[in-house]
């Protein structure tokens, strides 16, 4: 840990020098000092990318200084969560989490849960997309639904980890069209890359993953996008929503932030203010756009309410697919 932190420190030092030399914006008086993000996953993962994007934007806009990102991978994020909950914090610290961790807590029957942290903000969302190879005889979502109804086992779905967003979405689709979710033939793959390969190669019937993972293949005409999971169409993307295709469902892979339950009210407010200021910056909007993330910002109270609903929905979905009791 010391090694990484030292490395990160030198990284930060380099970043700080870069921003100072660029130094156009004035220093703000209420800058948060020595902020730490805990990403409960490996470097390069979704949580990590979000943390490091925030790190860059917060420092560039002088909303925070000395920002560090710590990665604690394992157990679907629950190892990081338990470390976040049990360790004593000297500096302000923020947990990055999202849909996957929420599902991971249920499937791993984790001893630590999200009830032990306080939601700070929802930051972004990613729509999922259902694709088939361009050569497939499935042309529309209706074709797929018909096939699924005829014989659920004959439709193999290539998707990410068990209990993750892809799996939950398949379960919810099956339920929505009146197919027993436990009969769904869901084939787990290790990450979007393998899902892409399995789908492009025609090994699985359909592929399901984040839109960005499939984007270039859809644009190149190698994959046909049947439906996108967001409630509304994505700007500039000619793919119908699930609702348009006759399946009454909208679901997004979201990520957000939380703080330790012991965080003083004052500090919590300062951090929420910092995030609220960050999401308004041009740099943040540009970073979201580059990565294909949708701006689904929610402030603390709204996020907490959303989280409650989402937990119930996902827990039910996981029960329906036979993952938890």
């Amino acid at each position, binding site marked *: 840990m010391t090694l990484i932190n030292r490395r990160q420190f030198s990284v930060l030092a380099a970043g700080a020098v870069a921003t100072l030399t660029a130094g156009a914006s004035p220093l703000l008086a209420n800058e948060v000092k020595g902020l730490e993000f805990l990403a409960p996953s*490996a470097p390069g993962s979704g949580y990590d990318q979000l943390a490091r994007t925030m790190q860059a934007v917060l420092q560039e806009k002088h909303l925070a200084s000395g920002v560090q990102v710590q990665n604690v991978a394992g157990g679907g994020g629950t190892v990081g969560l338990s470390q976040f909950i049990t360790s004593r914090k000297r500096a302000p610290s923020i947990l990055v989490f999202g849909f996957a961790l929420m599902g991971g807590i249920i499937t791993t029957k984790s001893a630590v849960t999200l009830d032990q942290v306080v939601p700070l903000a929802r930051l972004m969302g990613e729509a999922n997309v259902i694709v088939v190879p361009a050569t497939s005889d499935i042309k529309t979502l209706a074709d797929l639904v018909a096939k699924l109804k005829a014989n659920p086992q004959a439709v193999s779905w290539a998707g990410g980890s068990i209990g993750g967003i892809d799996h939950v979405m398949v379960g919810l689709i099956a339920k929505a069209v009146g197919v027993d979710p436990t009969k769904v033939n869901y084939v787990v793959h290790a990450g979007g890359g393998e899902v892409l390969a399995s789908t492009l190669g025609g090994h699985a019937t359909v592929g399901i993953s984040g839109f960005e993972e499939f984007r270039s293949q859809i644009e190149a005409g190698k994959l046909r996008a049947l439906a996108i999971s967001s409630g509304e169409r994505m700007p500039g993307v000619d793919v119908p929503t699930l609702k348009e295709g006759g399946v009454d469902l909208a679901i997004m892979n979201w990520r957000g932030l939380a703080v330790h339950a012991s965080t003083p009210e004052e500090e919590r407010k300062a951090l929420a203010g910092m995030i609220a200021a960050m999401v308004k910056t041009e740099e943040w909007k540009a970073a979201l756009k580059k990565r294909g993330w949708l701006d689904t910002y929610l402030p603390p109270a709204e996020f907490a309410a959303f989280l409650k609903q989402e937990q119930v929905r996902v827990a039910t979905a996981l029960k329906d697919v036979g993952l938890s009791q």
Partner: protein
Amino acid sequence: METLSALLHGFSVALTPYNLMWSAIGVTLGTAIGVLPGIGPALTVALLLPVTYNLDPTSAFIMFAGIFYGAMYGGSTTSILLNTPGESASIVTALDGHAMARKGRGAQALATAAIGSFVAGTIATVALTFVAPLMVRVALAFGPAEYFALMVLALTTVTAVLGDSLPRGLASLFFGLALGLVGIDLQTGQARFALGIPELLDGIDVVVVAVGLFAVGETLYNAARHRFEPEEMYDLKGSKWMSREDWSRSWKPWLRGTLIGFPIGALPAGGSEIPTFLSYLTEKRLSRHPEEFGHGAIEAVAGPEAANNASAAGVLAPLLSLGLPTSATAAIMLAAFQQYGLQPGPLLFDNNSTLVWGLIASLYIGNVLLLVLNLPMAGVWVKLLAIPRPWLYAGILIFATMGAYTLNNNLVDLVILWVIGLIGFGMRVLDVPVAPCIVGLILGPMAEQQFRRALAISQGDLSVFVTHPISLALLLIGLLLILVPMLLRRRRAAQLPA
């Protein structure tokens, strides 16, 4: 022709002093992190991403590619000298590489690794330049059934490392397979043998086990025998250059390693370990000195080292042409592409040809830089072995422990390392070979996942493994690899008494 002119344009981009500098920084950094166990190229690139935010994408990717290739070179150094593989791709190198070092031939082992890496890296880069689209089409033909057959084929490697006693070798293999079961089962989400410890949910890290068995176990064993044996330096004996015989025994393994490594690297779930296994097996089967394997055969270093470098180039084929990451490092590089708003995939070559060809050209340059950097270093590195044994042993144990910790910053890994280390010590005392355990641990879980995926897709129909032509061919090759040596042995045995 079009490719050639594009490549020339790429060289004009990569050969500017500014980009050359980034390439040099990349390969140096890559070699350094390759040498340090626990810090891999994936982590390094991830940590550098925020710093390179304001850098020109072409320069950033030239540096990342340097890190990627450099780590493959550096990984062999600790395997050979300290029996401490830094990443899973260099585990096989440790088998004979360290044996060579103990015989005072460490310099030759390092040299054949470096030159082999250069040869493989360069040939594979040429292949990447000209046949990447073809490679990718072949790679996509691999579904779960084909992967399972490939794993079975790789599993036959175990026959080359079983040692003299079949029961002992199999015991080690099954120990490895059992260790591979620990953690969440991907297909059902159920925890297996995790003992309620959250850190075990992701399974036991192969590198921790390899370092435990090789570095900790071996070192403890040697230290335990230290009192009964005269002090003997592992220092260099004779010339530090490769002899004519070394060259003639190395060049074919380099080429064969490349041939095995590149296509498997391009497979989305091929991994970097399988080509090293297959190369080891091939070399042992083809060698005129199979009895030297395990005791410092130079072919067993040359082949696998070439194979892991060629597979590194293979990884770039699906990454650039499909946006398909096939390794942890490739996944981070994909994230890096996205940071710059670039979309790897079929359109990348058209939209960002300067970047792609500059990157490919930089791979050729990086390989040359790495050879220049590493070959003279071989002579310096082997000086490590001149350290008196007690100090060397202490050093290896500290180095191994530090490496296992930095891997995931996880105390549980340290406990696993030392428990496995003590088991490794026991295995060494009882003369149980440790290599089959590693083969089982790496291949077992992969084979299981692919087997179950194949059956899920076929709805339980076992015939998929023999009705898919690629799968059938791979299984038949595996069968031949087991049967032919047995038949040959029987024939030889029949001839002998006469």
